[in-house]
């Protein structure tokens, strides 16, 4: 039994299940999909634990090489995306928040504005939208870069130099994504709230900027800051893990890279939604 389980969860079986011909019955098909899902979860969990272990054990190792790489990844997953996030924050403020402000003003419910803004922008839309955009812009690039590197033998080259590929290739990406998602969420939330205020002013909503920001400040509590920090860090960590897992953990051929990139982005979206659901439960529980 133990041997069978060990065999079932190896990579060869994953490939065999994935590329096997379609089964004749729906129950067999369903069973295969469930089995594939379990194998993927097992692989992702193992890779996440390995990455976490390397992060904890080697965060100070080889600083001369790793610090520039971490800075480069922070730049890629954070600083380089700022212009896009400036635009998205502006659009979010105008399209969503501004309309909400106007709608609440029409029914005389502007007193609920602060709470609505905190729930919609700070808790939900800001972090989730940031995660999706970083996944699309940087996560996809991660899979393609790592998949190509794997196919070209960079992993063997690193191992031949006694360099841990997870430390050299994954750790900077994880740190870059965690810090990038965290910082970009803050900028997106602040930008969206500010542009919403601007929209309200332009639309002649009877609400002064002072009242608007006072309501938001009153609706925020310490838990919002803590959970926002945890949530964005979780988004960044798991987006990096999912995309790096698909790029690096499995041997690829060059022609497989594009297909794997699509799979990684799909799984990244699912993981982000699941994390979001967990945090909704946490918000409701507290």
């Amino acid at each position, binding site marked *: 039994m133990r041997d069978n389980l060990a065999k079932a969860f190896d990579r*060869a079986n994953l490939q065999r299940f994935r590329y096997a011909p379609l089964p004749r019955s729906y129950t067999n098909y369903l069973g295969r999909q469930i089995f594939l899902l379990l194998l993927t979860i097992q692989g992702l969990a193992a890779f996440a634990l390995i990455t976490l272990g390397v992060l904890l054990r080697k965060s100070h190792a*080889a600083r*001369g*090489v790793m610090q520039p790489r971490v800075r480069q990844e922070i730049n890629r997953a954070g600083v380089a995306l700022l212009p896009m996030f400036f635009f998205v924050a502006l659009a979010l403020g105008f399209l969503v928040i501004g309309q909400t402000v106007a709608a609440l003003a029409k029914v005389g419910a502007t007193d609920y504005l602060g709470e609505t803004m905190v729930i919609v922008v700070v808790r939900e839309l800001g972090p989730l939208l940031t995660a999706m955009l970083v996944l699309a812009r940087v996560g996809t690039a991660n899979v393609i870069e790592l998949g190509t590197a794997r196919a*070209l*033998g*960079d992993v*063997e*080259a690193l*191992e*031949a*130099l*006694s*360099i*841990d590929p997870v430390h*050299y290739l994954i750790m900077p990406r994880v740190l870059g994504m965690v810090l990038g998602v965290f910082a970009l969420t803050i900028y997106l939330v602040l930008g969206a709230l500010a542009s919403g205020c601007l929209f309200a002013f332009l639309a002649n909503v009877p609400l002064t900027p002072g009242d608007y920001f006072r309501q938001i400040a009153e609706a925020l509590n310490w838990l919002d800051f803590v959970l926002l920090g945890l949530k964005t860090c979780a988004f960044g960590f798991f987006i990096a893990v999912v995309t790096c897992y698909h790029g690096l953990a499995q*041997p690829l051929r060059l022609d497989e890279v594009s297909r794997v990139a699509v799979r990684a982005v799909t799984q990244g979206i699912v993981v982000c939604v699941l994390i979001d659901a967990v945090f909704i439960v946490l918000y409701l529980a507290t």
Partner: protein
Amino acid sequence: MDTKAAILDMQGVQVTALRDPSIIVLEEVTWSVRTGEFWVVAGAQHSGKSDLLLHAAGLMTPSAGTCRVFGCDTHQFDETQMAVRLRVGLAFADGKLFNQLTLAENIALPLLYHQRLTDAEAVRRVEALLELLELTPQADARPENVPAVWRRRAALARALALQPELLLLDNPNGGLTARHRQWQMNFLDQLWRGHDFFGGHPMTLVATTDDLQPWRHPQRKFAGVHEGHFTVLGAWGGDEFTGHRAVKELLALPEGQVGG
């Protein structure tokens, strides 16, 4: 009787393919490499020489048998054995340089990663290696922008950066012009005898090849790989050497047809 210690010792090793570990490429490899020896492993292309070197370097663990490098079983070749791992250098057949780094940065990578060097010291050591391998004019070029022969040389420089005691070379002459091949053979010979650059300490070398002729040397030891079997052949011209099918095949090939 050879009293020198075996720094690479394989006993009944089953060599599997890197791309698909379920494929066995060599059966029952029993082989000892002692300090100061220069081994040449001959075999046709895709006969399993590269996979054998990956096992010897500890990058792959044998599915059967034991492989010991400097007395350490490669099954236990983890982070705790880093000091042992750093005594082995490996230069791949296609170089496997990192395309996002320049040649100089590729060579500097192991130095900066494993040794706490100041920037000035790292630059000095990389410049010295570049000069030794006549790579200075290409130092700032990226691998994709330099010819394959210089990429090979950069890969050799990178493998030598940490001054290994055992240097494994995967088909180092493949695709080289006669001039570059001559330079390389002389350089490897100097390494084996003890190059001044490395303090005059003799280096143990293992090279694979699919073109035997340039490796002819009375003091080198030969092994052959043919149809999934590894055979120790001894010195050039011995009975076992001349009778081996891989040797017959490789020596029958006209010059210039081999490479890659």
